[in-house]
């Protein structure tokens, strides 16, 4: 960080974004744009986070396209007997190629986590902002209902719902989204409470702007900072939850290739043929670390530039 700042101080034209974000005051002094984005990119950990996440995302999305060209097998073809060392990373419990299963098994996890997070964000935002904006009795009702939902452990709630409704993808996504929503609603509400007393909201009221438009055009853009942090954090949790559910046998069902499922199938031979477990574990670890770093970096970048200043 300091080396970056030093080098750009002597030659500010080369990489203005870094110089700015390294020190907001200095950036303001020199009159260049100093936005959340520039401040985000200036952090070393944010770049690391993006790199790690990108790595796993690329593997997950390009992997299926590489089959069977990269390994000679599709995800369900048998390569050898169980737990052998043949191929790059050996075979799994049924003698299928681990690398092929790994390359094919990331898409579902990523897709469902992103969907669950997005749905959770939408629900949480809606309830949180309405609660803050309307206030009074409705606020109490929404927030107390929220507290009830928060009291139920996330995984227990998911287990219950999936046991009743069956392990289908839409159930998985909806259940994870619903368990996220109350947490997001709390964040959205408290952020919105800081904004609704600003005069520009009063001005919008005065001009009789429709209330939905006040929510989404006046309030929402001013609470993006805390929400982006929350989104990053929830994505991390979604990945963890969906992987755990698959591991428990309540997510993806065999013979589908899935990282969570792979860990479960191959854990009995961890000492003999560790790659069947290690590959998906590493991928999930790198992915969650990456998204977490990004969430942290957003938090730091948006801390100084939200409510009240541009």
């Amino acid at each position, binding site marked *: 960080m300091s080396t970056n700042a030093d080098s750009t*101080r002597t030659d500010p034209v080369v990489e203005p974004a870094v110089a700015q974000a390294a*020190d907001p*005051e*200095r950036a303001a*002094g*020199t009159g260049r744009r100093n936005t959340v984005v520039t401040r985000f990119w200036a952090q070393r950990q944010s770049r690391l986070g993006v790199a790690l996440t990108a790595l796993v995302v690329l593997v997950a999305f390009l992997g299926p396209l590489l089959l069977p060209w990269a390994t000679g097998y599709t995800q369900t073809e048998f390569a050898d007997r169980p737990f052998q060392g043949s191929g790059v990373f050996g075979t799994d419990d049924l003698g299928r190629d681990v690398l092929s299963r790994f390359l094919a098994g990331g898409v579902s996890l990523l897709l469902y986590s992103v969907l669950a997070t997005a749905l959770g964000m939408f629900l949480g935002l809606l309830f949180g902002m309405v609660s803050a904006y309307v206030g009074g009795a409705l606020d109490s009702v929404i927030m107390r209902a929220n507290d009830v939902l928060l009291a139920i452990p996330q995984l227990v709630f998911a287990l219950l719902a999936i046991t009743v409704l069956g392990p289908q993808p839409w159930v998985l996504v909806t259940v994870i989204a619903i368990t996220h929503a109350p947490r997001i609603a709390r964040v959205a509400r408290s952020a919105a409470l800081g904004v609704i007393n*600003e*005069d*520009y909201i*009063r*001005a*919008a*009221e*005065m*001009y*009789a*702007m429709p209330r939905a438009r006040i929510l989404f055009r*006046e309030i929402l*853009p*001013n609470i993006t900072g805390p929400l982006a942090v929350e989104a990053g954090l929830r994505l991390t949790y979604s990945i963890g939850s969906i992987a755990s559910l698959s591991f428990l046998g309540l997510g993806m069902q065999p013979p589908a290739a899935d990282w969570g499922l792979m860990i479960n199938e191959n854990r009995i031979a961890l000492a003999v043929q560790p790659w069947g477990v290690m590959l998906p574990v590493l991928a999930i670890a790198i992915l969650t670390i990456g998204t977490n770093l990004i969430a942290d970096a957003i938090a730091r970048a948006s801390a100084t530039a939200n409510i*009240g*200043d*541009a």
Partner: protein
Amino acid sequence: MAHPHADTTVMSATGAPMVAGSIWHARRESGGNILEIEDLRIGSTAGREIIKGVSLSLRPAEILALVGESGSGKTTVGLTALGHLRRGLALTGGTVTLCPSNSTEPAEMTSLDDASLRRLRGARVSYIPQDPALSLNPSMRVGEQIREVLDIHRFGTSAEERAERVRSVLREVGLPDDDAYQSRWPHQLSGGQQQRIGIAMAFAMYPDVLVLDEPTTGLDVSTQALVLETIREMTVKNNAAGLYITHDLAVVAEIADRVAVMLSGELVEEGAAEEVLRAPRHTYTKTLIAAVPDLAGRNRISEFEARRRAAAGEEELSTGGFGIVEEGAEAETETGAEAGSAVAGTDSAGSVAAGPAAGASGTGSDSGGATTAAAGASATAEAATGAAEGDAPAEPVVQVRGLTLAYGRKTVLDGIDLDLRAGECTMLLGESGSGKTTLSRSLAGILDTWTGSVAYRGEELAPSTRRRTVDQRREIQYIFQSPFSSLNPRRTLGESISVPLEMSSGLSAAERRERVDTALDAVRLGRAFRDRRPGDLSGGERQRAAIARALVNMPTVLICDEITSALDVSVQASIIDLLSRLREERGLTMLFVTHNIALARHVSARVAVLNQGRIVDEGPTDAVLTSPTHAYTKELLANVPTL
């Protein structure tokens, strides 16, 4: 470590512990300075120069006012007297020397280590901050807070002595000294009392130098008068030297012996207060003084722009070019626009469109052009003021009858009757807590819990804007107090300004854009500001944008709620100049809400004085100011500081 004045302590006449034969005594005997700032240079860590060679000196029992507008660096200079630099700043040259009364050596504030600085701060040099509500610890009783200062600096020899000092300093600042008062919490005191606690803390250790950072800015005029008197008295009595940082020249006239004027980190003028205020030498000082509203109305700030240019023109002739750096861009746009309106003649709305056209020629105008513009503009102002005052009372556009508003059992507004007449500006005067913002928001329909009646051209208005008709909403516009909060930071000015249009008319996007541009030109910002965001703009520019938003719908009634109270005096003057001009051009009916009685003759034909939810005095400006009928109005008039 031995206590610095353990054995040689002598008591001065006032009871201050001092070291006999200290450097402070020596300097005082010889009439020398006890604080010397020499060629002070401070830069930001990025290398930008903030303070460019400032030299100041202070003698005992003298108050030096450091005057300048936001961003001029006056607080930065003031804080160096305490040996403090804000984060992101670095000393690049110069010295700050303090001669404390507890040592025989002068202290070099810029090179001392932290421990020595801590021993000096609060004891030999103390600080009175701007906002007492923020500087007092809310979870500590006020007596304890004063005592804490004494404990830290190990005042006297016993706990009794310290307790006695707390009582005596409370008496000195004019507060009760009993235990019941000392055990109050800060929130149980009024703003004036909180500030006096702050003063008591600063004076508790008998400091030699006092740095006062706009200590009366947040206070009402009567409280301000009291606090200023306390400060004056305390500095003289304790032989302390005061460095009074302020932007308010009227306060300077009340309190200071000498004045130093700062502009963009440089000292542009220094001298005896009377001399500087009466016969300023530097253009910037002249501009500042021209911007101060006076009660008598002689200093016509509604013609501020013309006078500023006249002053700048003079300077240009004599020195060959000097630009007012403060809000440079704004001034430039204005020069263009004003020159345009002068050319277009005095007849009204034409100048709105003339702005951009004249921009090119006006920006580079020589002094000749500027004076022509000045003459034209002042002629317009004269004519309009005459018309407004001379005519028989026009019919009321807005009629308020029996407006009452209560929060629970507390009545905020109690049966307000008020008429706003066509094309006339009415000033609503009141101190904080009088209900003036509540009243203006009730009229604008932002607050809807009031009872009573508000009629616009004979039609009853619904309490809330949402229930008013589109036309009613369009005709009555409200401008918020703080330009820092009234514009959405995430949206461009163009987007914000077009909101009223989107909500009230069927104009197409292109037509809306045209109206927004016209409004931006009318407030002398120029259409180039359409795509900028509030974060890039100064306070004055933001407030102009807020005015543009109110004007974009071509209203007939404009409610201005303390719109200049967050701004510097010269910006205030140019905003008032702008409003007066707009009122003439468009025949606006205005309600100008303020706490500053000195603005009365500059903006309004009528004055209504609001006190504790009631209108206690109402009538033509001259009548109210020369023969006030209510005791409250008299008190306000008596306390207003003047140049």
